[in-house]
């Protein structure tokens, strides 16, 4: 008898709890996430790992990530956002800058890579030091010559902002703001930056055709360049020495991560998509135009400096006409639907510091 009373008492309490939780509202709006599908472009390989396996891609997560990406208030002087260095109109590189501006008139020591197709990578940065897209933002957020902040400072700022609380609730179910959620949201945005709608892609899908110039350039490309800049991503994501000399920062690239002397001056092979807009080029932005890049490859394959990658083992000899053809082919990799995308671009006007 006593037991029965006790059981019904507990049931009553449980029912009351359920009722309260169903009606209570924390004031940060509803939680009704819209799942997004990660679409692999036609003809592309599957990404080596699923970066969204433990980070469910949703419209709300993407939008939160986008807001974070364009928000200069995450930096110590409130002037530098991710987008200050990764500008949409430059294919998410820094337009016309060899090195980028960080907070308080500092400069980066490397060229800001054009962010694209990051879901196909397993190592980030020129030296591959970052092993997962989610932890990548920790580097720019805290580097004194980038956003110059600290993780706890960034979280304090976000927690004090009601609009962020709403967005975190929308994306993750409650208004709790944690480093993990912030990083996952950023990864939803950056991991979604796919560019796959250039003239080259249209030609490959049979919806367009190359000019004779471009078609010849494509042939030169396949002979001399495609072994490292592998189609359709235009990178094999490996680390290689393409003959750039050591620079004033004594930047040894991959060796700084592996500690192996054999990795000296190896850098991650960058994609060449949107290369028309992402100049200057290379890890230190030391080459300013595509024709000059081709000159570099011709010079370096003739000189064969020590350590040069074996894919560049024989001299590349191109006539001035062929050089132009190759450049014109590279410009077919421009995807303006990406660089001018409303979805990836800022929601309002932004000011970039130069």
């Amino acid at each position, binding site marked *: 008898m006593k037991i029965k009373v006790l059981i019904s008492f507990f049931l009553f309490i*449980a029912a009351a709890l359920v009722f309260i939780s169903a009606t209570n509202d924390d004031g940060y709006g509803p939680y009704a996430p819209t799942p997004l599908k990660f679409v692999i472009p036609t003809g592309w390989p599957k990404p080596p790992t699923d970066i969204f396996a433990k980070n469910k891609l949703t419209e709300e997560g993407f939008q939160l990530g986008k807001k974070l990406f364009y928000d200069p208030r995450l930096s110590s002087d409130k002037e530098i956002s991710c987008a200050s260095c990764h500008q949409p109109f430059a294919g998410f590189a820094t337009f016309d800058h060899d090195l980028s501006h960080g907070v308080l008139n500092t400069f980066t020591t490397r060229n800001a890579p054009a962010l694209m197709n990051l879901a196909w990578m397993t190592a980030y940065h020129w030296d591959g030091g970052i092993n997962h897209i*989610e932890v990548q933002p920790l580097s720019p957020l805290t580097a004194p010559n980038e956003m110059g902040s600290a993780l706890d400072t960034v979280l304090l700022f976000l927690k004090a902002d009601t609009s962020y609380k709403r967005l975190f609730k929308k994306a993750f179910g409650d208004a709790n703001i944690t480093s993990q959620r912030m990083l996952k949201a950023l990864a939803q945005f950056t991991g979604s930056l796919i560019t796959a709608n250039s003239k080259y892609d249209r030609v490959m899908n049979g919806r367009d055709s190359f000019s004779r110039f471009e078609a010849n350039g494509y042939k030169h490309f396949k002979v001399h360049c495609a072994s490292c800049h592998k189609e359709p991503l235009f990178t094999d994501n490996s680390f290689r020495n393409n003959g750039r000399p050591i620079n004033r920062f004594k930047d040894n690239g991959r060796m700084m991560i592996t500690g192996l002397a054999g990795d000296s001056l190896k850098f991650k092979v960058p994609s060449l998509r949107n290369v028309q807009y992402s100049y200057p080029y290379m890890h230190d932005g030391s080459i300013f135009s595509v024709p000059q890049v081709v000159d570099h490859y011709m010079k370096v394959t003739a000189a064969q400096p020590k350590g040069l990658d074996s894919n560049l083992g024989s001299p590349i000899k191109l006539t001035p006409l062929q050089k132009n053809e190759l450049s014109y082919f590279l410009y077919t990799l421009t995807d303006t639907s990406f660089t001018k995308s409303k979805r990836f671009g800022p929601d309002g006007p932004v000011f970039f510091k130069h």
Partner: protein
Amino acid sequence: MIRSLFKKICSCIAFVLLCNLFSYAQVSFKFNITANGKPLLLNDSSYTNGFNEAYQVTRLKYYISNILFKGDDVMLFNERVLLMDAGNTDSIVFPSSNGNYHSLDFTIGVDSALNCSGAQDEALDPLNGMFWTWNSGYIFFKLEGYSPASKADLGRIEHHVGGYRFPNNVARRITLPFPRKLEVKAGSKHTIIVNIDLDKYWKGISDIKIADQALLMTPGRLAIKAADNFQGMFSIKSIE
């Protein structure tokens, strides 16, 4: 709606289970850190290592994971990752099942998979300052301080021992036999006091001289040397 209902029911069940738990046996750990045979005090106190180098410690943090109790016919495993901090001497409590146990194993460090699976939370939250931002991976053991022997700026010591990639993985499995068999019965409570002897960090299998290596900030050869001294630092002081 359904989700929150489910959550509530779960928490009710968890509550009932928790009530039961109080009749379970409990084993807790306390990690005591000593230097020169005295309990380590952060900041002000000065100690001397085996090379006659004086030093002060301002910060000492390390990860412990995959704690395993071995018994005659029982094993008890807890894969949780714990961030230990010399500035905080709380003990760690585990509910334990009954049995006779004779040794304790744990890892100093973090499983390699957790070093490369993206943003983590709790003990592994990068907010804890134990995650390298330029060369992803956790710092497994962090010792910071000052020494007149240090050749670094301001006489600093900064030892950030970590690395999960082969061949520079410095996660080390520590095995500690109990001085006597630990009998765990229903309702019993035990505290295992583990001693960490900092003297052995400097002078163990490897020699770590502050004058030569005040700064240790990357995975590699030096980190391996330091990690090779981990096993020697740990011992069981007592079981209560």
